[in-house]
């Protein structure tokens, strides 16, 4: 199994990994590779930085899909950056015909802030965008780029969390007309909590929060069914999770944690890509990881060239040692992964990832399996 094969056969590829490993670049490169192999791809990023736009050499990516021209491709590529505000607004419009609910929600200050704040909304919005993309016949593959490390598992937790929360008793305490299911003890606890919340937030803010949850609660069923669909997709056979990492100690530790977090949620990583994990030391065989270089120089080397030749040989030899060390370090993560997980090492590719043409340089690595 190769990454190219994963890209050829799946409906959704989710890229997870620590910050700074080149995840967004690789997600874009996967998009290019898939387009070159005849698929119609949407690369979706939920990381708020402009990285994907930079990697694709595209000016600004918005919430709707922008075509990315891939020269000579038999398929096609589009890209979009999930933006909380527009996504939520669009989501709401698609969810219900009840005009008054929509109007009140849009006017609710808590909704307005909640739908636009950077940090936490992204997972929920990504879920909604995924749902839409899954049902859009324009694309047969979605490559999803997630924010660095810890937030990545939010995408799995998000669908269940929101609907679970809306069921939770606490929300009922917040609802203006108190939807208490059971008896007095329940109601007493709720009263105390309302007192505490009022002391913390003040009556006005508490009122607005109640209104917000009341409105959101009315949309609960719609959220729930969408959430079920996305969750099923995320966990289904058409989806592959790809971990992107590198051999540095900090990143390895984060990658190991990520794998554990995903496993705890019943997800197996299908491919682990160690990016920038070796230096190309044989320019004619870039997929070969050179881990040792013989120190002997040719006997007929002119004396005048000996010193620079020795230093250059030593320089490349040290790089070969570092390749060996990196491979050994990466194995710390690799031993934890299931035997069936594809392992791929990608070297430091100078200057790659600044244009669509450049992203094509990752192609040969996706076609093989190197470690």
């Amino acid at each position, binding site marked *: 199994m190769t990454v190219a094969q994963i890209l050829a056969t799946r409906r959704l590829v989710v890229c997870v990994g620590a910050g700074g490993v080149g995840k967004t670049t690789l997600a874009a490169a996967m998009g290019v590779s898939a387009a070159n192999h005849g698929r119609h791809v949407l690369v979706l990023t939920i990381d708020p930085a402009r990285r994907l736009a930079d990697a694709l050499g595209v000016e600004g990516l918005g919430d709707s899909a922008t075509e990315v021209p891939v020269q000579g491709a038999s398929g096609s590529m589009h890209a979009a950056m999930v933006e909380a505000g527009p996504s939520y607004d669009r989501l709401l419009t698609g969810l219900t015909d009840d005009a008054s609910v929509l109007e009140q929600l849009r006017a609710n200050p808590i909704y307005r802030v909640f739908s636009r704040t950077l940090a936490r909304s992204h997972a929920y919005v990504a879920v909604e965008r995924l749902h839409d993309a899954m049902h859009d016949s324009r694309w047969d593959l979605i490559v999803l780029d997630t924010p660095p490390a810890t937030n990545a598992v939010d995408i799995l937790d998000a669908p269940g969390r929101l609907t679970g929360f809306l069921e939770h008793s606490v929300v009922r305490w917040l609802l203006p007309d108190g939807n208490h299911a059971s008896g007095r003890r329940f109601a007493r606890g709720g009263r105390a909590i309302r007192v505490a919340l009022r*002391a913390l937030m003040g009556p006005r803010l508490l009122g607005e929060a109640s209104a917000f949850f009341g409105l959101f609660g009315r949309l609960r069923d719609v959220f729930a069914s969408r959430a079920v669909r996305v969750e099923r997709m995320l966990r289904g056979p058409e989806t592959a999770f790809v971990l992107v990492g590198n051999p540095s100690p900090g990143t390895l530790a984060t990658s190991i944690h990520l794998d554990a977090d995903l496993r705890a949620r019943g997800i197996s990583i299908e491919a682990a890509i160690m990016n920038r994990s070796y230096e190309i030391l044989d320019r004619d065989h870039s997929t070969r990881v050179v881990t040792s270089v013989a120190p002997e120089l040719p006997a007929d080397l002119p004396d005048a060239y000996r010193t620079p*030749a020795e230093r250059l040989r030593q320089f490349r030899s040290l790089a070969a040692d570092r390749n060996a060390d990196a491979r050994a370090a990466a194995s710390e993560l690799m031993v934890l992964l299931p035997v069936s997980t594809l392992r791929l090492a990608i070297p430091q590719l100078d200057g790659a990832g600044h244009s669509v043409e450049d992203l094509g340089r990752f192609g040969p690595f996706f076609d093989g399996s190197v470690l």
Partner: protein
Amino acid sequence: MSHDDLLPVFDLDLVFVTGKGGVGKSLVSAAIASEAARVGLRPLLVQLGSRTSMEAIFGTRLAAQPTFVGSGVTALSLDPNTALVEYLEAHLPAPRLARLLARSAGLRWLFRAAPGVPELVSLDRLARFLDEREPGRARWRPIIVDLDASGHARMFFDLPRVLGRFAAGGPLEPVVGRVRAMLEAPGTGVCLVGLGTPLAGRETQELYRVLVDQYEMLVAGLVINDLIQPPLPGIVDRDLDQLDQWAASTGAREVELDVDYGRRVRRRYEASRRAVAELRAAVAAPCVEFPRLEHPTGAAALRRLAPLLTGGAR
């Protein structure tokens, strides 16, 4: 390598260290703390949330309360959940209520999910650390905060604006006001961390502009991390060309590969210097360059890097 120093950072009361993911913010935060201790200040290093980066540097998990971790550094991990409990205890009229709220799983979810709340309780906790006194002076100075990746940094600095309207006229107003005062104080600033690669450099520049233009934060310093040193000093292009020609004519393939690799690293170095120059030109703050290290973490790395921050000026 140029020799600015980051002395302005050491004159601050509160330093937020931020930059895109993976640049080495934790290492730089630790280096600032270590150097601050060495020059006789009383730094407190604060890691937000539980991440693994500080563990690799100090060889131990950070505790929830200030604890000495070596290299002259006192540090803690500020977990929003713990900060929430402390906030509740500090702001609720009865301890019983605080316990009740803290025990409710649903409420904990609500607080974690609600925009700005984790940031608010964390910033409130920071404000209380800033207020701690020992006879005649502040107990901790400077407080160095390792802020995780840029997106969350923005949430922090934007907090007074986001919550301002909601807080008005209610019990949150003085809390938000204090946080705003802390962020706007002249003794509060940012140390930006970046890398010397074109893509990373551009993103760092973007972040700088947001910090200065949108949040009006003082950027007191820039650290560019993980920089490669001039490769193969003393070998000139002519050496490479001649050796390459000889190797090609005699079929000495391994020698050709040696030259090719040497040239590639040279080009990489030159691209890095261009990226550094561009970043330095775009960021109006003193800049210190950290070299790439063989072992980029641990006490040895701190010993090597921390003194570069003051350039031996103190």
